[in-house]
Protein backbone atom coordinates (compact mmCIF):
# COMPACT_ATOMS: atom_id res chain seq x y z
CA UNK A 1 0.00 0.00 0.00
CA UNK A 2 2.76 2.30 0.83
CA UNK A 3 4.61 1.30 -2.27
CA UNK A 4 1.61 1.90 -4.52
CA UNK A 5 1.10 5.35 -3.02
CA UNK A 6 4.69 6.16 -3.80
CA UNK A 7 4.29 4.87 -7.37
CA UNK A 8 1.14 6.93 -7.85
CA UNK A 9 2.90 10.00 -6.64
CA UNK A 10 5.79 9.39 -8.99
CA UNK A 11 3.45 8.94 -11.96
CA UNK A 12 1.48 12.08 -11.18
CA UNK A 13 4.66 14.06 -10.75
CA UNK A 14 6.03 12.81 -14.06
CA UNK A 15 2.77 13.60 -15.86
CA UNK A 16 2.74 17.10 -14.41
CA UNK A 17 6.37 17.63 -15.40
CA UNK A 18 5.63 16.58 -18.97
CA UNK A 19 2.63 18.91 -19.10
CA UNK A 20 4.71 21.82 -17.85
CA UNK A 21 7.47 21.04 -20.30
CA UNK A 22 5.01 20.91 -23.12
CA UNK A 23 3.48 24.21 -22.11
CA UNK A 24 6.90 25.83 -21.77
CA UNK A 25 8.12 24.72 -25.16
CA UNK A 26 4.96 25.78 -26.94
CA UNK A 27 4.38 22.42 -28.47
CA UNK A 28 0.86 22.15 -29.63
CA UNK A 29 -0.99 19.09 -29.77
CA UNK A 30 -2.07 19.98 -33.34
CA UNK A 31 0.22 19.65 -36.36
CA UNK A 32 0.02 20.56 -40.01
CA UNK A 33 2.10 19.82 -43.00
CA UNK A 34 2.38 21.68 -46.33
CA UNK A 35 3.79 21.07 -49.72
CA UNK A 36 4.80 23.76 -52.16
CA UNK A 37 4.73 22.73 -55.76
CA UNK A 38 7.12 24.65 -57.97
CA UNK A 39 6.25 25.00 -61.62
CA UNK A 40 8.33 26.74 -64.22
CA UNK A 41 9.20 26.67 -67.84
CA UNK A 42 12.69 27.41 -69.03
CA UNK A 43 12.70 29.21 -72.33
CA UNK A 44 15.50 29.92 -74.69
CA UNK A 45 16.53 33.54 -74.83
CA UNK A 46 19.12 35.70 -76.48
CA UNK A 47 20.42 39.18 -75.78
CA UNK A 48 21.98 41.89 -77.90
CA UNK A 49 24.33 44.64 -76.80
CA UNK A 50 26.45 47.19 -78.61
CA UNK A 51 30.10 47.64 -77.74
CA UNK A 52 32.87 49.98 -78.79
CA UNK A 53 35.12 48.40 -81.36
CA UNK A 54 38.69 47.76 -80.13
CA UNK A 55 39.82 50.45 -82.59
CA UNK A 56 37.61 53.07 -80.98
CA UNK A 57 38.97 56.57 -81.27
CA UNK A 58 40.71 56.03 -84.56
CA UNK A 59 39.22 57.15 -87.84
CA UNK A 60 36.05 55.22 -88.56
CA UNK A 61 35.49 54.09 -84.98
CA UNK A 62 33.65 56.62 -82.86
CA UNK A 63 32.85 55.85 -79.24
CA UNK A 64 29.31 54.88 -78.35
CA UNK A 65 27.52 56.49 -75.48
CA UNK A 66 26.30 53.91 -72.98
CA UNK A 67 28.27 51.04 -74.55
CA UNK A 68 27.66 47.54 -73.32
CA UNK A 69 23.91 48.01 -73.42
CA UNK A 70 21.20 47.60 -76.00
CA UNK A 71 20.44 51.31 -76.13
CA UNK A 72 23.41 53.35 -77.21
CA UNK A 73 24.14 56.65 -78.93
CA UNK A 74 26.42 57.33 -81.84
CA UNK A 75 27.25 60.97 -82.51
CA UNK A 76 28.70 61.53 -85.96
CA UNK A 77 29.25 65.24 -85.38
CA UNK A 78 28.60 67.72 -88.14
CA UNK A 79 29.65 67.58 -91.75
CA UNK A 80 29.06 69.17 -95.11
CA UNK A 81 29.79 68.36 -98.71
CA UNK A 82 32.13 71.23 -99.60
CA UNK A 83 35.67 71.07 -98.49
CA UNK A 84 35.35 67.60 -96.95
CA UNK A 85 34.22 69.36 -93.80
CA UNK A 86 33.57 67.18 -90.77
CA UNK A 87 33.86 68.16 -87.15
CA UNK A 88 34.42 64.73 -85.70
CA UNK A 89 37.93 63.31 -85.70
CA UNK A 90 36.69 59.74 -85.39
CA UNK A 91 34.25 59.54 -88.29
CA UNK A 92 35.34 58.35 -91.67
CA UNK A 93 34.41 61.06 -94.19
CA UNK A 94 34.37 60.55 -97.93
CA UNK A 95 32.74 61.82 -101.06
CA UNK A 96 30.64 59.19 -102.79
CA UNK A 97 30.21 59.89 -106.46
CA UNK A 98 29.97 63.46 -107.62
CA UNK A 99 27.31 64.76 -105.30
CA UNK A 100 27.14 62.74 -102.08
CA UNK A 101 29.24 62.75 -98.98
CA UNK A 102 29.32 59.99 -96.44
CA UNK A 103 30.24 59.80 -92.80
CA UNK A 104 30.57 56.43 -91.17
CA UNK A 105 31.59 54.80 -87.94
CA UNK A 106 31.89 51.18 -86.91
CA UNK A 107 30.88 49.44 -83.69
CA UNK A 108 30.44 45.90 -82.46
CA UNK A 109 27.24 43.92 -82.00
CA UNK A 110 27.38 41.11 -79.47
CA UNK A 111 24.59 38.55 -79.28
CA UNK A 112 24.62 35.88 -76.59
CA UNK A 113 22.30 32.95 -76.02
CA UNK A 114 20.99 31.13 -72.99
CA UNK A 115 19.26 27.78 -72.74
CA UNK A 116 19.32 27.49 -76.44
CA UNK A 117 20.67 24.99 -78.89
CA UNK A 118 20.43 27.53 -81.66
CA UNK A 119 23.66 27.39 -83.66
CA UNK A 120 23.49 30.91 -85.03
CA UNK A 121 21.34 33.97 -85.39
CA UNK A 122 20.08 36.31 -88.04
CA UNK A 123 20.64 40.04 -87.77
CA UNK A 124 18.42 42.72 -89.22
CA UNK A 125 18.00 46.45 -88.78
CA UNK A 126 15.41 49.13 -89.37
CA UNK A 127 15.42 52.90 -89.07
CA UNK A 128 12.73 54.70 -87.13
CA UNK A 129 11.59 57.35 -89.56
CA UNK A 130 11.81 58.08 -93.24
CA UNK A 131 14.92 60.22 -93.75
CA UNK A 132 14.80 63.46 -95.75
CA UNK A 133 15.10 63.16 -99.50
CA UNK A 134 18.62 62.33 -100.64
CA UNK A 135 19.71 61.09 -97.25
CA UNK A 136 20.47 57.39 -96.90
CA UNK A 137 21.26 55.44 -93.75
CA UNK A 138 23.14 52.21 -94.29
CA UNK A 139 24.74 49.40 -92.35
CA UNK A 140 27.70 47.84 -94.13
CA UNK A 141 26.55 49.34 -97.43
CA UNK A 142 23.02 47.94 -97.03
CA UNK A 143 20.42 50.72 -97.16
CA UNK A 144 17.88 50.71 -94.35
CA UNK A 145 14.25 51.77 -94.41
CA UNK A 146 11.55 52.47 -91.88
CA UNK A 147 9.00 50.06 -93.36
CA UNK A 148 10.53 46.70 -92.57
CA UNK A 149 13.62 45.13 -91.10
CA UNK A 150 16.42 44.70 -93.59
CA UNK A 151 18.46 41.54 -93.21
CA UNK A 152 22.12 42.20 -92.53
CA UNK A 153 23.40 38.69 -91.77
CA UNK A 154 21.95 35.20 -91.90
CA UNK A 155 24.44 33.13 -89.90
CA UNK A 156 26.15 35.10 -87.17
CA UNK A 157 27.80 33.30 -84.28
CA UNK A 158 26.82 33.82 -80.67
CA UNK A 159 29.33 35.31 -78.30
CA UNK A 160 31.48 36.77 -81.03
CA UNK A 161 31.46 40.50 -81.73
CA UNK A 162 30.22 41.38 -85.17
CA UNK A 163 31.57 44.68 -86.43
CA UNK A 164 29.01 46.82 -88.22
CA UNK A 165 29.52 50.17 -89.87
CA UNK A 166 26.83 52.81 -89.77
CA UNK A 167 26.96 55.06 -92.82
CA UNK A 168 25.02 58.21 -93.56
CA UNK A 169 25.09 59.44 -97.12
CA UNK A 170 23.93 62.99 -97.80
CA UNK A 171 23.57 64.63 -101.19
CA UNK A 172 24.97 68.09 -101.62
CA UNK A 173 21.53 69.62 -102.16
CA UNK A 174 20.22 68.61 -98.75
CA UNK A 175 19.56 71.73 -96.67
CA UNK A 176 21.40 72.13 -93.41
CA UNK A 177 19.62 70.27 -90.67
CA UNK A 178 19.95 67.73 -87.91
CA UNK A 179 19.72 64.19 -89.21
CA UNK A 180 18.87 61.57 -86.67
CA UNK A 181 17.53 58.06 -86.61
CA UNK A 182 16.94 55.37 -84.07
CA UNK A 183 18.18 52.22 -85.69
CA UNK A 184 16.68 49.07 -84.24
CA UNK A 185 18.70 45.91 -84.54
CA UNK A 186 16.88 42.60 -84.37
CA UNK A 187 18.67 39.34 -83.67
CA UNK A 188 16.64 36.20 -84.28
CA UNK A 189 17.82 32.75 -83.29
CA UNK A 190 18.13 30.28 -86.14
Amino acid at each position, binding site marked *: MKVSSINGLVLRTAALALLMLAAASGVSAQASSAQLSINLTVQSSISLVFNDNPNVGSVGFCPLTNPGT*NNVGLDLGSASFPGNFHSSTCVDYAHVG*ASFYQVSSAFDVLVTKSNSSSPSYRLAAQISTAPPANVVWLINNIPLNNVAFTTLDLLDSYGRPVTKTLQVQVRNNVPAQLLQETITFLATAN
Partner: protein
Amino acid sequence: MKKHSAQIRIILALMALLCASPVFAQNPTATGVINGTLINKNGIALIFDTDPGGVTLGAAGTSAATLDFGAISAFGPLAPGVTRTSVTAVNYTVRTVFDVQVIQGGLNSNTYTLSAQLASALPTGFSFKIDGVTLANGASNIQTNAAYNVDVPHNLDLTVSTAAPGAGGPAVGTPLSTVINFQASAN
Protein backbone atom coordinates in the same frame (compact mmCIF):
# COMPACT_ATOMS: atom_id res chain seq x y z
CA MET B 1 -22.34 10.81 -70.20
CA LYS B 2 -19.04 10.08 -68.45
CA LYS B 3 -17.48 9.00 -71.75
CA HIS B 4 -18.77 12.17 -73.41
CA SER B 5 -17.10 14.36 -70.77
CA ALA B 6 -13.81 12.58 -71.25
CA GLN B 7 -13.95 13.19 -74.96
CA ILE B 8 -14.57 16.89 -74.40
CA ARG B 9 -11.59 17.06 -72.05
CA ILE B 10 -9.38 15.38 -74.61
CA ILE B 11 -10.51 17.76 -77.35
CA LEU B 12 -9.92 20.78 -75.10
CA ALA B 13 -6.48 19.50 -74.23
CA LEU B 14 -5.60 19.01 -77.86
CA MET B 15 -6.84 22.51 -78.70
CA ALA B 16 -4.72 23.92 -75.91
CA LEU B 17 -1.68 22.13 -77.24
CA LEU B 18 -2.34 23.33 -80.75
CA CYS B 19 -2.70 26.89 -79.56
CA ALA B 20 0.40 26.72 -77.41
CA SER B 21 2.72 25.06 -79.89
CA PRO B 22 3.44 28.12 -82.05
CA VAL B 23 4.54 30.02 -78.97
CA PHE B 24 7.06 27.41 -78.02
CA ALA B 25 8.16 27.02 -81.63
CA GLN B 26 8.94 30.72 -82.01
CA ASN B 27 12.64 31.47 -82.03
CA PRO B 28 13.83 33.85 -79.36
CA THR B 29 14.72 37.35 -80.42
CA ALA B 30 16.66 40.26 -78.98
CA THR B 31 16.65 43.89 -79.96
CA GLY B 32 18.84 46.89 -79.43
CA VAL B 33 18.79 50.43 -80.69
CA ILE B 34 21.43 52.87 -81.84
CA ASN B 35 20.52 56.51 -81.72
CA GLY B 36 22.53 57.99 -84.55
CA THR B 37 22.88 61.71 -85.17
CA LEU B 38 24.57 63.78 -87.83
CA ILE B 39 24.36 67.53 -88.30
CA ASN B 40 24.35 68.26 -92.00
CA LYS B 41 25.82 71.71 -92.58
CA ASN B 42 25.83 73.83 -95.69
CA GLY B 43 28.90 75.40 -97.13
CA ILE B 44 30.91 76.36 -100.17
CA ALA B 45 34.45 75.42 -101.05
CA LEU B 46 36.87 76.39 -103.79
CA ILE B 47 39.70 74.28 -105.10
CA PHE B 48 42.26 74.74 -107.84
CA ASP B 49 42.84 72.04 -110.40
CA THR B 50 45.47 71.67 -113.05
CA ASP B 51 44.13 72.46 -116.47
CA PRO B 52 45.29 70.17 -119.28
CA GLY B 53 46.56 73.21 -121.17
CA GLY B 54 48.31 74.86 -118.25
CA VAL B 55 51.18 74.30 -115.92
CA THR B 56 50.92 71.57 -113.34
CA LEU B 57 49.77 73.06 -110.07
CA GLY B 58 51.37 72.25 -106.78
CA ALA B 59 48.86 70.91 -104.25
CA ALA B 60 46.24 70.66 -106.98
CA GLY B 61 42.80 69.78 -105.73
CA THR B 62 43.15 71.98 -102.69
CA SER B 63 42.32 75.56 -101.85
CA ALA B 64 45.99 76.47 -101.39
CA ALA B 65 47.72 75.59 -104.61
CA THR B 66 50.88 76.93 -106.20
CA LEU B 67 51.49 77.87 -109.82
CA ASP B 68 55.02 78.11 -111.09
CA PHE B 69 55.59 79.95 -114.37
CA GLY B 70 59.20 78.88 -114.30
CA ALA B 71 61.71 81.12 -116.06
CA ILE B 72 60.03 83.63 -118.31
CA SER B 73 61.42 86.03 -120.85
CA ALA B 74 60.31 88.00 -123.85
CA PHE B 75 62.07 85.75 -126.32
CA GLY B 76 63.47 82.70 -124.61
CA PRO B 77 61.94 79.30 -124.08
CA LEU B 78 59.06 78.93 -121.69
CA ALA B 79 58.02 76.13 -119.38
CA PRO B 80 55.46 73.60 -120.54
CA GLY B 81 51.97 74.99 -120.19
CA VAL B 82 53.14 78.58 -120.51
CA THR B 83 52.57 80.53 -123.68
CA ARG B 84 53.64 84.01 -124.75
CA THR B 85 50.62 85.90 -125.98
CA SER B 86 52.23 89.19 -126.88
CA VAL B 87 55.54 90.95 -127.08
CA THR B 88 55.70 94.70 -127.55
CA ALA B 89 58.37 97.29 -127.11
CA VAL B 90 57.26 98.02 -123.58
CA ASN B 91 56.14 94.68 -122.26
CA TYR B 92 55.38 91.08 -122.97
CA THR B 93 52.73 88.77 -121.62
CA VAL B 94 52.92 85.12 -120.69
CA ARG B 95 49.87 83.05 -120.03
CA THR B 96 48.87 79.83 -118.41
CA VAL B 97 45.52 78.37 -117.65
CA PHE B 98 44.29 76.90 -114.41
CA ASP B 99 40.97 75.51 -113.28
CA VAL B 100 38.75 76.61 -110.45
CA GLN B 101 36.13 74.30 -109.10
CA VAL B 102 33.59 75.49 -106.58
CA ILE B 103 31.54 73.01 -104.64
CA GLN B 104 28.51 73.82 -102.59
CA GLY B 105 26.35 71.76 -100.32
CA GLY B 106 23.04 72.50 -98.66
CA LEU B 107 22.66 75.91 -100.29
CA ASN B 108 19.78 77.06 -102.45
CA SER B 109 22.15 78.35 -105.08
CA ASN B 110 22.81 77.35 -108.67
CA THR B 111 25.72 79.61 -109.51
CA TYR B 112 28.47 81.55 -107.86
CA THR B 113 30.47 84.70 -108.38
CA LEU B 114 34.22 84.44 -108.47
CA SER B 115 36.42 87.34 -107.47
CA ALA B 116 40.15 87.71 -107.00
CA GLN B 117 42.59 90.17 -105.58
CA LEU B 118 46.26 90.51 -104.96
CA ALA B 119 47.33 89.70 -101.43
CA SER B 120 50.01 92.39 -101.54
CA ALA B 121 51.53 94.92 -103.89
CA LEU B 122 53.18 93.39 -106.92
CA PRO B 123 56.90 93.56 -107.53
CA THR B 124 57.93 96.31 -109.84
CA GLY B 125 57.32 95.69 -113.52
CA PHE B 126 54.53 93.13 -113.19
CA SER B 127 50.80 93.09 -113.66
CA PHE B 128 48.36 90.23 -113.54
CA LYS B 129 45.09 89.63 -115.31
CA ILE B 130 42.65 86.81 -114.98
CA ASP B 131 40.39 86.37 -117.96
CA GLY B 132 41.29 89.89 -118.98
CA VAL B 133 40.47 91.47 -115.63
CA THR B 134 43.37 93.33 -114.10
CA LEU B 135 44.01 92.35 -110.52
CA ALA B 136 44.45 94.90 -107.79
CA ASN B 137 44.63 94.95 -104.04
CA GLY B 138 40.84 95.16 -103.93
CA ALA B 139 38.52 92.40 -105.11
CA SER B 140 37.70 92.23 -108.82
CA ASN B 141 34.90 90.10 -110.21
CA ILE B 142 36.18 87.45 -112.57
CA GLN B 143 32.98 85.52 -113.26
CA THR B 144 29.46 86.20 -112.10
CA ASN B 145 27.41 83.12 -113.00
CA ALA B 146 29.76 80.21 -112.73
CA ALA B 147 28.49 76.65 -112.42
CA TYR B 148 29.24 74.51 -109.39
CA ASN B 149 31.02 71.21 -109.36
CA VAL B 150 32.88 71.58 -112.64
CA ASP B 151 36.37 72.72 -113.45
CA VAL B 152 36.17 76.21 -114.91
CA PRO B 153 39.34 77.21 -116.80
CA HIS B 154 40.74 80.66 -116.25
CA ASN B 155 43.54 82.36 -118.10
CA LEU B 156 46.20 83.90 -115.94
CA ASP B 157 48.16 86.55 -117.80
CA LEU B 158 51.34 87.98 -116.43
CA THR B 159 52.50 91.12 -118.16
CA VAL B 160 56.12 92.02 -117.64
CA SER B 161 57.76 95.32 -118.40
CA THR B 162 60.66 95.14 -120.76
CA ALA B 163 62.41 97.99 -118.96
CA ALA B 164 65.72 97.32 -117.32
CA PRO B 165 66.00 96.66 -113.60
CA GLY B 166 66.01 99.94 -111.74
CA ALA B 167 64.34 101.71 -114.65
CA GLY B 168 60.82 100.42 -114.09
CA GLY B 169 61.60 96.84 -115.07
CA PRO B 170 61.51 93.79 -112.80
CA ALA B 171 64.42 92.30 -110.96
CA VAL B 172 66.22 89.79 -113.11
CA GLY B 173 67.49 86.40 -112.07
CA THR B 174 65.72 86.50 -108.75
CA PRO B 175 62.73 84.31 -107.94
CA LEU B 176 59.66 86.43 -107.49
CA SER B 177 56.37 85.41 -106.01
CA THR B 178 52.99 86.83 -105.35
CA VAL B 179 49.75 85.58 -103.86
CA ILE B 180 46.31 85.93 -105.38
CA ASN B 181 43.30 85.43 -103.16
CA PHE B 182 40.11 84.08 -104.68
CA GLN B 183 36.62 84.18 -103.30
CA ALA B 184 33.54 82.35 -104.49
CA SER B 185 30.21 83.73 -103.34
CA ALA B 186 26.96 81.82 -103.79
CA ASN B 187 24.41 83.66 -105.92
